[in-house]
């Protein structure tokens, strides 16, 4: 159960916080400043853990943008989100929401939240297409694990790997949306001439399931829209409640941006231009570090036009290419040295498949968990706004 992985951590923090809240004098300004500092510190700590994980000899840290790393990122997100709510809503006078600057910032945040929800949905579908790639890799593993490797098994592996590489390319090129739906149209429509269907009969076969997002919906555009009105609070606002709203918004944008970069998603053109976070903000340093690393990776990949930055996918692509070369020039018997090399690669492939098998479904469920959590938080904020509105509404 993925929930238990992080529940301990964030619930723990929440209860600590609640105690703090109980203990403090309501609305004492000093306490508020302290709360905000604590929040900033936690955010900073959590992201530095992601940037450079605490080294532990017993278990090697998860590589950047791997499935396990993304799951940690989501854990962090859930923790930050819970703490943010505690800072902003708990034990607070709702009427603050209707006064500047929150009267503007909170609705803006909620708009970002809605965009993030659509991104979560696109990501869930994206994980499905990664699973499709995993299935193809598993076929290649099954074929190449046979001893001795014969011509038939080599061809079998090659076929699967070619489909895998094609699927990854397609995934990136057209975001799998437009073409797939068009395909769904021509697919089996009575009256389609059988010749054209035949020509096409294997081309689309291994294409991942069409991303079922709305037409013209673009992940990159959503990210852009989420960050477009994101301005750090200045002057007196910087020490007030505008600051956690800004921090949380930044976390929202960063997490969604990272996930979209890693997992296949409808329409990612222009994702490389990352959003600016002011360098002087102490809490943002680790996030800026991560952002730079990921943006660099993206730039490298963008030129080659291949699949997303998911670490496992990238490795899959590399090993896949190399094994295709092997299968291309396959001739029985294979020299022992080469065979040993292939064996290592196949083991690598199997390892990735195992990681995907173990991690993708929980990752998908966690994205869904984020979805539901964010929906709930939005409702809580709307409730507070509603209460505040009722308090201040003129009674005719």
């Amino acid at each position, binding site marked *: 159960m993925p929930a238990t992985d992080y529940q301990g951590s964030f619930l723990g923090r929440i209860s600590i916080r609640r105690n703090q809240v109980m203990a403090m004098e309501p609305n004492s300004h000093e306490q508020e400043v302290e709360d905000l500092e604590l929040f900033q510190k936690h955010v900073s700590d959590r992201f530095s853990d992601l940037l450079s994980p605490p080294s532990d000899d017993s278990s090697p840290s998860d590589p950047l943008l791997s499935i396990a790393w993304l799951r940690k990122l989501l854990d962090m997100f859930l923790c930050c989100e819970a703490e943010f709510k505690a800072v902003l809503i708990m034990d607070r006078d709702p009427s603050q929401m209707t006064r500047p600057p929150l009267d503007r910032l909170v609705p803006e945040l909620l708009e970002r939240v*809605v*965009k993030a*929800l*659509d991104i979560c*949905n696109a990501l*869930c*579908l994206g994980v*499905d297409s990664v699973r*499709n790639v995993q*299935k*193809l890799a*598993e*076929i290649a593993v*099954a074929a190449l694990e046979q001893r*001795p490797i*014969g*011509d*038939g*098994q080599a*061809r*079998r592996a090659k*076929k*699967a790997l070619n489909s895998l590489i094609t699927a990854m390319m397609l995934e990136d090129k057209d975001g799998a949306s437009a073409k*797939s*739906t068009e*395909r*769904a*149209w021509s*697919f*089996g*429509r*009575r009256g389609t001439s*059988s010749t054209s*269907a*035949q020509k096409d*009969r*294997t081309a*689309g*076969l*291994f*294409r991942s*399931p*069409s991303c*079922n*997002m*709305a*037409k013209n*919906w673009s992940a990159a555009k959503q990210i852009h829209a989420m960050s477009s009105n994101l301005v750090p609070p200045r002057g007196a606002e910087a020490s007030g409640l505008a600051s956690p709203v800004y921090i949380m918004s930044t976390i929202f944008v960063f997490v969604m941006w990272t996930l979209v970069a890693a997992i296949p998603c409808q329409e990612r053109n222009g994702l490389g231009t990352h959003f600016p976070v002011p360098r002087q903000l102490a809490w943002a340093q680790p996030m800026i570090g991560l952002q730079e690393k990921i943006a660099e990776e993206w730039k490298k990949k963008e030129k080659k036009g291949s699949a997303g930055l998911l670490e496992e996918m990238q490795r899959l692509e590399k090993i896949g290419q190399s094994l295709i070369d092997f299968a291309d020039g396959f001739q*029985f018997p294979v020299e022992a040295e080469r065979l040993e090399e292939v064996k290592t690669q196949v083991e690598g492939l199997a390892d990735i498949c195992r990681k995907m098998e173990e991690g993708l*479904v929980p990752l*998908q*469920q966690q994205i*869904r968990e984020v*979805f*539901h959590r964010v*929906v709930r938080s*939005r*409702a809580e904020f*709307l409730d507070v706004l509603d209460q505040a509105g009722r308090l201040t509404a003129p009674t*005719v």
Partner: protein
Amino acid sequence: MEEHETGVTTYEGEQHVVAAAQHILKALAASKNINDGLRKTLLDVETHLSSMSSRLITERRNIKGAEDEVKSWEANHSMIWDSGLRESSEYLNAVREIETVTRSLQSLCVSENWKQKELLHRAEGVLQIAMSRLEEELVHILLQHTQFFEPEFMSFHSDRVDMVFDESFVSAEDEAIEEASRRNGDCSQSEFGIIDLVHADVIPDLKDIANVMFASKYHQEFCLAFITSRRHALQEYLVILGMKTLSIENVLKMEWDCLNSKMKKWMWAMKIIIKVYLASEKRLCKQILGHLGLVYQSCFTEISKGFVMPLLNFGEAIAMGTHGPERLFRLLDMYEVLENLAVDVDILFFDESSCFLRHEFHKLVRSIGNTVRSTFLAFENAIATYRSAKGFPGGGIHPLTRYVMNYIKTLTEYRDTLCLLLADESLVSVPHSTEHGTSDLTFYPMACQLRSITTTLESNLRNKSKLYRDVALQHIFMMNNLHYIVQKVKSSELSQFFGDEWLRQHTGKFQHEARSYERVTWSSVLSMISEGSSSTCALSLKASLKKRCTGFSIAFEEVYRNQTGWLIPNHQLREDVQISISQKLVHAYWTFIGKNSSGIGEKWIKYSVDDLESFILDLFGGSSRSLRDHQRRK
């Protein structure tokens, strides 16, 4: 081809070696210098050798035959299963042959026999070509024989009324409600059934292909091709149903008219998708893969996952929105549709691989339920805060009253659902049915809510009544509206929720308003002609009588002019009020005239008793009249 020839030559060479070995073994066994044990062993080895060589011979022959069959189709551009039954079964036999050979060679291959290994590789190579071909055939068959069931736009578009809460209240008119509130039961149930998504004739073919591919351990390829093909087919069904995926952002921003029609369509599509398409899809998976274990279920999950999630997301988007009271019915419809589908969904996605979908579905049911509940609870607040700037002439039934009463009357059609949803929240335990088997609905949380709503309505009306400067009109207004409320409750299922006690109490209330009206309007008019005021001194008796007569006429004319413009829309109620006025007024007038007509003379008596009686019938007609007109007409 080269490989083939070397195969033949090595085969001959091998035969010579085997024959020589057999010869030696036989000779040794025949020798008298060995004991029985050793002789037996030698003979066993000889038998083994001979059987092995004959086995290799037959297997080589089999591979050759199958290879020819498989390779002949590689050059051919037509599809095997399109070519005929003979072709397909011959091909299948060849594949089965090669599969059997491969398997037996694999079992032999523990020894480092190079010949066998070479033979095995040849067999595997042929098998791979055949499997690749079968995969294409599979996709092709699915493509050619998928059937598209196009449902008519079924009777589902809910014929429940759309209530619009606006100033005009057009849709809240009684007639429209009466007409629309007949609920179309679950007659549509029978229209749903499992259909053949793929033509029944090709199911055995698909099953054959599945069997050989699974037997050859190419099950992964089969599943992937099958799943992908079926996913595309399901996408096609969405196109047929006209369902387009919407982003949550769009749904939240959508205008109600548009959203309303999308919701109706969604409900309709959900029913068809769950009850027809997915149920049929699952049967298809079972028909083809059911005998191969639970793999059919995981294939089904993979096929339907990406298909179901966007549909659920639309529901989530709806549940996230904030909705005015007029949307409650559509939300209730949605909730009921989902509730009804829950069992189907549990059956479709019963296993571990699909519990994710099952949970998501139930989460959605809960979210929509919460939205229904909060929308319903917000309704009362909407009534409490409803302010209308416009004055409301005549004291008739306020549109708000009509709206609220028709609204809650329509709610009773959803009573089971609402009772369930409200009971969740309420701390009051729901009493179980009494010994008579019928439960007393008046204790249900829903009943409390409904009564609370009418109480809120009443107090809002009370405030509105203050807008009339004429106190009598205030009473008429309250009487009319209370009477309307009571009638609505009495004549509908609402009575079960409100109970007799409430009805008694509220009947008393509007009757009290009627009495108050009479007192306020008529007591001063009556005082002109009543006994008490006539005991002045004898001298001025006549003058006083005259004055009282005139005063009465003027007062009556004034009331007439005013109150003919007022309105009691309910005929029965109007009659009751008129009779009550008549009884008091006409009787007093008759007594007054009978006693005093001699004293004051006819000319002072402006109206006869009959006149008065008929004038009273003009009251509360809704169009203001004047008695001066009446006299002119005379």
